[in-house]
């Protein structure tokens, strides 16, 4: 794309980061670690947007604005999720997804 770094390299790094996040989301049982995997996934999408913006329209800022909005959504999502996690911990003294069955039956 510029000076020896093609676009596909950025995309490959973002892909690896995305699927590492997917793996963490599937494997982890603690709610906070699952939230951290989710942040990895959102962050990898931002890299894609920014790299495509630089390739296609280097003088415009579309991808950058998408990234800014994604970051804002991620921040609000993290704050609400952590509030819910703290509330769950206060009631059940546990934040393990497999032990949360209060509302099940």
């Amino acid at each position, binding site marked *: *794309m*510029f*000076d*020896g*770094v*093609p676009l*596909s*390299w*950025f995309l*490959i790094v973002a*892909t*690896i*980061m*995305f*699927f*590492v*996040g*997917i*793996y*963490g989301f*599937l*494997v*982890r*049982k*603690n709610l*906070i*670690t699952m*939230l*951290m*995997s989710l*942040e*990895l996934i959102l*962050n990898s999408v*931002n890299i894609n947007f*920014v790299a495509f913006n630089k*390739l*296609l329209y*280097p003088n415009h*800022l*579309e991808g*950058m*604005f998408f990234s*800014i*909005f994604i*970051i*804002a*959504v991620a*921040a*609000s*999502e*993290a*704050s*609400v999720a*952590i*509030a819910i*996690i*703290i*509330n769950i911990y*206060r009631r059940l003294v546990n*934040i393990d997804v497999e032990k949360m069955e209060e509302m099940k039956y």
Partner: protein
Amino acid sequence: MTSNQIMFFIFSAVIVIFSILTVSSRRILRAATFLLFVLVATAGLYFMLRFNFLAAIQLTLYAGGIVVLIIFSILLTSQVGQKLELPSVKKRIFAAFAALAGGLVCIFAILQYNFPIAVTDLSTERTTIDDIGKAMISTGKYGYALPFEVISILLLAAMIGAIIIAKKRKD
């Protein structure tokens, strides 16, 4: 090997190694610290692409805000010295298989597609805060007034919701 390539390799190596450590570390506080390294390296990639404002946002909001929030909630809800229990081997194998399959499909698709090689000279272009601020409040073409307002409502709603949910109830 240009200096750009060396920088890119350093940042991407940090991203890949520390994101794998983030999802595999058994100490939860260390996992949060590794996540911080991933986010800072991503900010480095943004600096490489000359998105200085976005990189600053990434550093302050992600690395400064979200990671600190996560660390606080870890300190509130978990025993820090304790190791997380390891997930079962079957679960790990199937999750790794799913992630690897998806990742390989995407990487092959990326490598097969010939992206046009548009060489953009990054030294001449200038994106100032002025342009970003004007685009944020303009309603015309390339203007982002509506998404800006919507996201401000979303942030307000999230803030009120977080306070209400985490508040201690009197009962």
